[in-house]
């Protein structure tokens, strides 16, 4: 079949392709300009440093901060670790309490779990069925020992955007530092930590059409001046907060990606939200028992997370995964056998969490791709429902909640 050669990538929340314009900007920094940005005594070092400085400006300009407030890291996971562990260590004498949310990325949650073993007290806020936190619950959780609130800008699984400005206001009122993992938001929607009251912000290049292996942490230098304790010791790079030779080609690419995002984000968002809405509307119109997960108003423009009830996500993906790349909240895609904790935190039953697919569109998604995905996924759902005993029971009118299941 000729169609077997077709490949559609709708997993842009996992990683984005590197934009060819970004690759082009990076190439000279591998061979022609191979210097170490920390080499101060020869042109090779100067050129590398210039490349890094320029990228720092491009990135700072995208998020409207001072270039000096950008710390380069290896990616968002490192940035999350540096922000949270670094704040805990630096501000330990002021308190040991951290507030975060149950739907955060593992880079935040596991970092918090680690700190709990080191004496931190962590509050994990619940979210409502639409994925949003309760601002009153956040405010009520703040106490004198609270040093940090960490809330992600947009969720990686559902695309749900938290009320960042309102959270920033609450943190400012209580004099608490506000950190955000903005990995999924930067470069896709306007993000301005200063206007939002965010003091530390983690993000990464490879979610915005830059290369993998390079990320950044924004650390506010003024009002308030925030400091984090370095988590790696060495040459004192990045104002002493992150030692290690800078990944010059990666940083240059990150900068170029930020520049392109600044120019094209609005048009990309508009185009992709239309395609996303088309995809969603087609499934809702053509299939029964389809549920969109998370708040549909406060949501990233390119993401939808959909449960196809009575079909298991991984099995469903197998019907088209030679041609279409997606993610599932099904347990079977992970080693843990637990379904997505994010969807479970939204109050979805495990059965709906097992039945979910995440579609994340990107700059290189075309309308034909969406038409193809609509057709292939819908036929996959129908095929899997023909195979599904619980779909048959549902169609016979059996209340599945009344069945005594033999759980393992």
């Amino acid at each position, binding site marked *: 079949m000729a169609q077997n050669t077709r490949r559609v990538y709708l997993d842009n929340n996992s990683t984005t392709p590197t934009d060819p314009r970004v690759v082009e900007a990076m190439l000279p920094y591998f061979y022609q300009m191979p210097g170490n940005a920390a080499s101060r005594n020869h042109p090779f070092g100067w050129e590398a440093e210039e490349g890094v400085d320029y990228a720092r400006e491009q990135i700072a300009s995208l998020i409207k901060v001072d270039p000096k407030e950008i710390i380069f890291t290896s990616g968002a996971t490192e940035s999350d670790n540096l922000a949270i562990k670094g704040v805990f260590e630096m501000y330990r004498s002021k308190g040991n309490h951290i507030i975060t949310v149950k739907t955060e990325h593992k880079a935040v949650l596991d970092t918090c779990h680690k700190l709990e073993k080191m004496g931190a007290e962590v509050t994990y806020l619940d979210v409502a069925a639409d994925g949003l936190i309760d601002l009153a619950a956040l405010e009520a959780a703040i106490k004198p020992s609270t040093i940090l609130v960490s809330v992600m800008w947009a969720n990686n699984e559902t695309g749900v955007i938290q009320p960042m400005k309102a959270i920033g206001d609450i943190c400012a009122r209580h004099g608490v530092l506000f950190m955000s993992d903005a990995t999924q938001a930067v470069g896709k929607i306007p993000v301005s930590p200063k206007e939002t009251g965010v003091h530390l912000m983690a993000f990464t290049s490879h979610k915005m059409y830059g290369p993998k292996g390079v990320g950044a942490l924004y650390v506010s230098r003024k009002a308030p001046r925030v400091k984090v304790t370095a988590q790696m010791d060495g040459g004192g790079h990045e104002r002493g907060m992150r030692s290690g030779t800078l990944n010059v080609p990666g940083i240059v690419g990150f900068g170029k990606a930020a520049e392109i995002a600044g120019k094209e984000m609005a048009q990309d968002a508009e185009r992709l939200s239309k395609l996303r809405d088309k995809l969603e509307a087609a499934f809702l119109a053509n299939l029964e028992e389809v549920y969109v997960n998370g708040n549909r108003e406060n949501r990233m423009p390119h993401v939808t997370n959909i449960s196809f009830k009575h079909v298991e996500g991984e099995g469903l993906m*197998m019907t088209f995964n030679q041609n279409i790349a997606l993610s599932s909240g099904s347990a079977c895609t992970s080693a843990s056998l637990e379904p997505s904790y994010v969807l479970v935190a939204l109050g979805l*039953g495990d059965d709906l969490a097992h039945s979910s697919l995440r579609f994340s569109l990107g700059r290189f998604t075309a309308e034909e791709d969406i038409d193809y995905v609509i057709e292939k996924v819908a036929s996959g759902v129908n095929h899997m429902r023909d*195979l*599904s005993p619980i779909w048959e029971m549902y169609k016979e009118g059996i209340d599945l909640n009344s069945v005594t299941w*033999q759980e*393992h």
Partner: protein
Amino acid sequence: MAYSDKVLEHFKNPRNVGTMDKSDKNVGTGLVGAPECGDVMRLQIQVDPETNTIVDAKFKTFGCGSAIASSSLATEWLKGKSVDEALTIDNMDIVEELALPPVKIHCSVLAEDAIRSAIADYQQKNGMKVTSNAEKAH
């Protein structure tokens, strides 16, 4: 994770998908797993009471590719076997045949449970002593 060719083959061409009349005296139905766990298997056998032989088997499964392949394979193996022979099918036979990775072994366990549960249902319906130990420890 890549699937073995055998899993893919059963997934693409599942054998014996379907539904039997569960009120039929000669039909035994096993329904195991739970939607919350991401796997539900329904396996049915039709037994010839004269010969105590399984003459037909059908399944429907909600689950991942390995769960569907495990139940598809189970129906293939059941046809033509006597009830006693069917009870000798071990989940590890399924693991071996389908080259299931450790994280998917539970799919084979579920298939074995489905076989035992279907046979128990048939035996109960016909007032026979239940010889399949559904409580087999894993």
